[in-house]
């Protein structure tokens, strides 16, 4: 078959014209202004390695893939409602006063549309009133103190990830199911909002579930103190059957090195509510039998889904290690914001939503994440709840990798207070309304 040269030339020319026309049409489409997001996490200091870096890593891959429209459905629309995300990263290291200054800089100097971040409960408590004052939409990320929304209702602040009450109620339920009865237990927690709240919630949950169990030692070493010889001696001479700890970062790892060398976790099982963040670094140095939490059903305990498979693969391909729960927490925070933003935008007929419209859409929203489903069920729809799980650590010597065994899952309504009830009131009232079946 042959073609006439003139017809071929006309064909090529019309093809070229079509391409040019398409390009022109695309060029004339208004490009939505980017959504500026300030991401705040520890990129220096003792909490960087186990929390800040996975958090930052997750924000990098998510922003990059959301902007390219490569995240699986239902998150395959570019950026937030078609507007690309323009990230600005800020280090969370420094005092709470420093963080307030940095936050004001993000809002007033850099004019970010949303702030997503914060690992430290102390920083979250410091930032929250400033966010309300500046009327800035803020999604708190990893910090776990329940006080954020229980001290006062908030309008501009959201937290997608569940708070510390869930971790500690689930820990108590796990321990008592696994060990049947506990007569004496102790705790070692960092001496600030996170450690104190975690211990209070665990102690109250234990009191509800096993009223005969008594506390022997309640230790609160200084945050980042690094040397735990005296605390380990105190726990070694105690008759405790379990030791609860919400230690994280370098403190957790230093405590494990020092206590394992003196045989403490081999003698008394540790219950580490944030233990998963360090299992890849500790490996065989973390004794088998340690009870591990992930503050949700994340890394080891995540539900299978296309989104989770994509998230894990993308993370491992980029950073050569699996994502730990701080990475999952960031994914939940950002995807929660995206869900609310796009819901608000759809309601507005595709136009860019205002902060108030995003807030209205965010309140009470339910959305899928790589590991589970989040429901913004507490604090007038500003605080998320999820199911959670705990497991017991076992280092797989043949595969040379950490694993969790004896996994137990707990529905969200089993381990979180019901809407309208403060966590302490719920725990002191015997966890009424908990649905664990």
């Amino acid at each position, binding site marked *: 078959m042959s073609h006439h040269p003139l017809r071929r030339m006309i064909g090529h020319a019309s093809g070229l014209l079509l391409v040019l026309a398409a390009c022109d049409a695309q060029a004339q489409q208004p490009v939505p202004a980017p959504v500026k997001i300030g991401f705040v996490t520890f990129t220096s200091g*003792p909490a*960087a*390695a186990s929390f800040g870096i996975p958090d930052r890593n997750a924000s990098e891959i998510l922003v990059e893939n959301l902007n390219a429209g490569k995240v699986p459905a239902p998150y395959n629309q570019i950026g937030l409602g078609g507007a690309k995300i323009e990230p600005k990263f800020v280090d969370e290291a420094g005092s709470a006063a420093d963080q307030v200054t940095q936050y004001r800089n993000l809002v007033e100097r850099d004019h970010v549309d949303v702030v997503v971040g914060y690992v430290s409960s102390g920083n979250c408590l410091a930032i929250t009133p400033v966010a309300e004052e500046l009327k800035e939409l803020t999604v708190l990320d990893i910090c776990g103190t329940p006080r954020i929304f229980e001290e006062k209702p908030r309008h501009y602040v959201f937290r997608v990830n569940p708070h510390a009450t869930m971790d500690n109620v689930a820990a108590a339920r796990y321990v008592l199911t696994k060990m049947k009865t506990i007569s004496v237990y102790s705790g070692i927690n960092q001496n600030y909002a996170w450690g104190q709240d975690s211990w209070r919630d665990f102690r109250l949950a234990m009191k509800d579930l096993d009223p005969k169990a008594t506390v022997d030692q309640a230790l*609160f070493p200084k945050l980042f103190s690094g040397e735990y*010889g*005296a605390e380990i*001696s105190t726990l070694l001479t105690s008759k405790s059957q379990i030791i609860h700890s919400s230690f994280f970062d370098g403190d957790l790892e230093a405590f494990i090195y020092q206590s394992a060398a003196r*045989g403490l976790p081999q003698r008394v099982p540790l219950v580490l509510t944030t233990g998963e963040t360090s299992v890849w670094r500790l490996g065989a*140095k973390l004794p088998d039998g340690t009870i591990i939490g992930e503050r949700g059903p994340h890394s080891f305990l995540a539900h299978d889904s296309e989104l989770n498979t994509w998230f894990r693969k993308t993370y491992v391909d980029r950073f050569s290690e699996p994502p730990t729960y701080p990475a999952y927490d960031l994914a939940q925070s950002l995807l929660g914001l995206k869900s609310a933003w796009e819901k608000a935008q759809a309601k507005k007929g595709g136009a860019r939503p205002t902060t108030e419209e995003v807030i209205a859409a965010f309140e009470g929203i339910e959305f899928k994440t790589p590991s589970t489903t989040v429901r913004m069920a507490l604090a007038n729809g500003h605080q998320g709840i999820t199911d959670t799980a705990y497991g017991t650590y076992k280092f797989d010597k043949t595969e040379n990798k950490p694993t969790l065994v004896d996994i137990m899952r707990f529905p969200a309504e089993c381990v979180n207070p019901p809407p309208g009830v403060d966590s302490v009131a719920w725990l002191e009232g015997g966890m009424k309304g908990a649905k664990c079946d």
Partner: protein
Amino acid sequence: MLTAFAILTDGLVYAAYLFLVGVGLTLIFGVMRILNVAHGSFYAYGAYAAAVAVGVYFDAGLPAAGGFLLMVLVAMAVGLVLGLIIERGVLRRVYGRDEVVVVLVTYAVFLILEDAIKLIWGPDSYALYQPLGVTGTVDVGGLVLSGYDIGLVAFAGLLAAAGSLALKRTRWGRLLTVVIFDRELAAAFGINVSVVYTATFVLGAMLGALGGAAMAPKISVTLGIGVEVIVLAFAVVVIGGLGSIDGAFIGALVVGLCRAAAVHLVPQIELFVIYAVMALVLVLRPQGLFARAQPRKI
């Protein structure tokens, strides 16, 4: 009885830790009158370098004794290099300036060195767990003590004795003592104060790095470890008297034992007790337990 024994052993271990991190700081202040905030960085660099080098050594399955020797050598090398660079490159240019200016300069050096850690070793944490394993444990009535901790106490004790003797019995020690008492008079008698300054700063940096290397097996070597240590080191040397090695030793012992007693008996005041001791000493003896009262020069 077991609690009393635990308080004693825990107190000694904590005191050893405090002395190791504080002795270099007090030496530098004693001779040079510089409150060196960058001392926390010497500790951190010693810990990082030891964690990496000694970790590789143990992973190669080489004899344990060599690992401990390497730990000391690596720390000395790090201290030597950092000390020389900072003293010759930075501090030399601000001698004679107001003390506050010099403190701010060392703070700036500290911030630069903290960021340089991220460039050299990255943000991840390092573990040097092998020395804790090879030194074993001792069980005393159900209280398991770490062999490494016992070694740490012995090492700190030896270092204190050696430092004190070296200051009092050796020629270099006497030269240092002269400079500590009166720099101008020392210079007038022909002592090369400039060389003494360099040697002291380098020695102080080596001791700081040695403190970090010695603590590396017990901690997670991670960003920010130098910040925490510097506050405690200041508290200890202020109690003992800035510039006194004997004072740093006694200050570390007092703080270590008080803190251990607090953790065992009244854990709520564990943090308070360190600074309460410091405040009490400053009220009763503002120059610290061992520093001599300074005569005012007219």
